[in-house]
């Protein structure tokens, strides 16, 4: 066991929440990550892009043009701020709500749309649901639906880097619900024991589909779960992108100094349904949603920029028009792109197609075609 003093006897208030961006648009110097205006504008553009694409994808789903979407409405700052703190050679392990961060790191909008349509150009070759793309070029891991499983993977990457003496950290996204999973427990425990440079980013958005946080844990916070693993836990205002950047950067630096992982609880709120398959009116009142709307993470950054004279209404209008144009263009292409080739169904199961899959491939290719999805 660690010879360090037990964390829980430390002096910090475990309920304290790190925040930087004040209501009046100024920054608390205590945690200010010192972002230049260009950096903040970069982040703001991606926040807006994320929100706007979320809305567009939901609309496409409602129109029956794509099958599914799982969005990040209200959680954009927690997602983009933490991703922004990760360096190019660090690895990111998404949960499923983080497409905005992938785009910010360089994943192309076209590829994202290809994934939403599951077409032949989809990076995952139409094999997974929408929002389950991959992008190795930006060290973005593959997305899996089972909750929590990516947590141990992020640990393994940081572990591999440590064994190889390479200065690489990993960040893993997961929700409040995922803290109940086996992989959360194993992953954080392993990272603690082996002092690995992992940032565990818990998006506490209040809900696991219809299950509220009180049903997930008897603790008051998620950050304090860090105590059980002998590592620091930090609570941060997840709707304050400055604060999220600051605490994530500190966690990365700590990890790379060999001091081990950090558990960050980003406090935010899932403003929409769990996904396009969910209707939150079935299980929650609108009041909380309204209260959280007043703390909208985009609005807060815009006010900050406007106050500094770094952002105008015209900028806003142009940005939105630009996003829309790029979105329309990408969707137009994605929608016209054919589905993956039949043969592709049998590739990548193994590095080479073995005899039984070759037989099955031949069976399909030479057999009758299936009915088309909608009749």
């Amino acid at each position, binding site marked *: 066991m660690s010879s360090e003093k037990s964390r829980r006897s430390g002096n910090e208030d475990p309920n304290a929440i790190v925040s930087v961006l004040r209501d009046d648009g100024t920054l608390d110097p205590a945690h200010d990550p010192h972002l230049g205006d260009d950096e903040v504008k970069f982040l703001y553009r991606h926040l807006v892009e994320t929100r706007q694409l979320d809305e567009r994808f939901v609309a496409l789903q409602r129109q029956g043009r794509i099958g599914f979407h799982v969005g990040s409405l209200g959680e954009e700052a927690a997602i983009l701020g933490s991703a922004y703190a990760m360096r190019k050679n660090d690895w990111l392990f998404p949960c499923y709500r983080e497409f905005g961060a992938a785009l910010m790191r360089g994943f192309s909008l076209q590829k994202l749309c290809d994934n939403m349509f599951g077409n032949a150009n989809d990076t995952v070759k139409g094999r997974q649901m929408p929002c389950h793309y991959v992008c190795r070029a930006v060290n973005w891991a593959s997305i899996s639906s*089972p909750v929590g499983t990516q947590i141990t993977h992020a640990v393994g990457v940081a572990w591999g880097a440590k064994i190889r003496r390479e200065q690489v950290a990993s960040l893993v996204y997961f929700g409040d619900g995922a803290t109940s999973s086996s992989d959360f427990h194993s992953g954080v425990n392993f990272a603690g024991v082996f002092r690995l440079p992992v940032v565990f980013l818990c998006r506490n958005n209040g809900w*696991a589909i219809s299950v509220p946080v009180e049903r*997930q844990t008897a603790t008051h916070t998620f950050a304090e779960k860090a105590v059980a693993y002998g590592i620091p836990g930090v609570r941060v205002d997840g709707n304050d992108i400055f604060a999220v950047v600051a605490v994530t950067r500190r966690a990365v630096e700590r990890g790379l100094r060999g001091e081990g992982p950090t558990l960050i609880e980003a406090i935010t709120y899932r403003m929409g349904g769990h996904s396009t398959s969910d209707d939150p009116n079935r299980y929650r009142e609108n009041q909380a949603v309204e209260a959280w709307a007043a703390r909208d993470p985009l609005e807060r950054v815009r006010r900050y920029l406007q106050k500094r004279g770094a952002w105008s209404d015209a900028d806003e209008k142009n940005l939105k028009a630009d996003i829309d144009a790029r979105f329309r263009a990408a969707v137009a292409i994605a929608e016209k792109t054919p589905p993956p080739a039949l043969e592709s169904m049998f590739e990548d*199961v193994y590095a080479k197609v073995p005899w039984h899959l070759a037989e099955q491939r031949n069976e399909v290719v030479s057999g009758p075609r299936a009915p088309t999805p909608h009749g």
Partner: protein
Amino acid sequence: MALINMVQAINEALRISMRGDERVVVLGEDVGKVGGVFRVTAGLQEEFGEERVIDTPLSENGIVGSAVGMALYGMVPVVEIQFADFIWTAYDQIVNELAKYRYRSGGEYSAKIVIRTPVGGGIRGGHYHSQHPEAAFIGVPGLKVVIPSNPYDAKGLLLASIRDPDPVVFLEPKRVYRAAKGEVPDGDYLVPLESASIVRPGRHVTVLAYGAMLYEALDAAAKAADKGVDAEVIDLRTLWPLDINTVIDSVKRTGRLVVVHEAPRTNGFGGELVSLVTERAFFHLEAPPVRVTGFDTPFPYTLELEYLPLSHRILPAILSLARS
């Protein structure tokens, strides 16, 4: 009698079980207020309260493990695993604990729980919302595995499963959750476990199917009839222990066997069925049995209808087998 779908039928079975037996509790993720992501448990929490219809933390092994404990204490927990694809973290509890509890305790204890879980593809769910993992449970001594294909059976089989003394894995073919409608008695009735149903009698080929694929088998059989081939279609209903007599009798009559399942072919239940039939009716077989199954790949998204063993793949199998 009312015309209802499978979701409603299963809901009725749960309600009747809970009304009739205080020991029955329902637990899982989102089973409470929202009534399950497929609405199967809708209204139960309102009627039976939060103590008997329980939203749990997000941990499948926690759900099954604590249900085993409840069962030891004499409760009859009916667990919902939101999608069968998410059952694997509970697999240790299922294989090593639930299935073996009676045996390993020399019969002093038993852990009677029912695990309900939606299975199968065709709903645009990709890898992780489409798995059909019956084989992983059939091979585990101590478990019973049940899968209804229609509302009448769904209600009667679930009522029987809850009352059966052994642990039951109850698979629900979600592709036909709402599509399969039928007349269902309002009250309590049982469809016995371990009894298959000859849904379409026939003379030339025996087709074994279950769950959502039953409809594909029936569609193929209807089309085969147009071409003069008379296929018998059997809905297995309980996969294990199998109603072996119905299966073997049929193959002895027809001399030809087609097995249909959505799961990958290799080491799927089809292999077991083919072996059982080959062992017991070898000299009645006119031709080698044929498996029409999902392929040996993870379940795909865009091409899911090419992956599934739908009617367009069953029909040629029936026809060529009948003519061989």
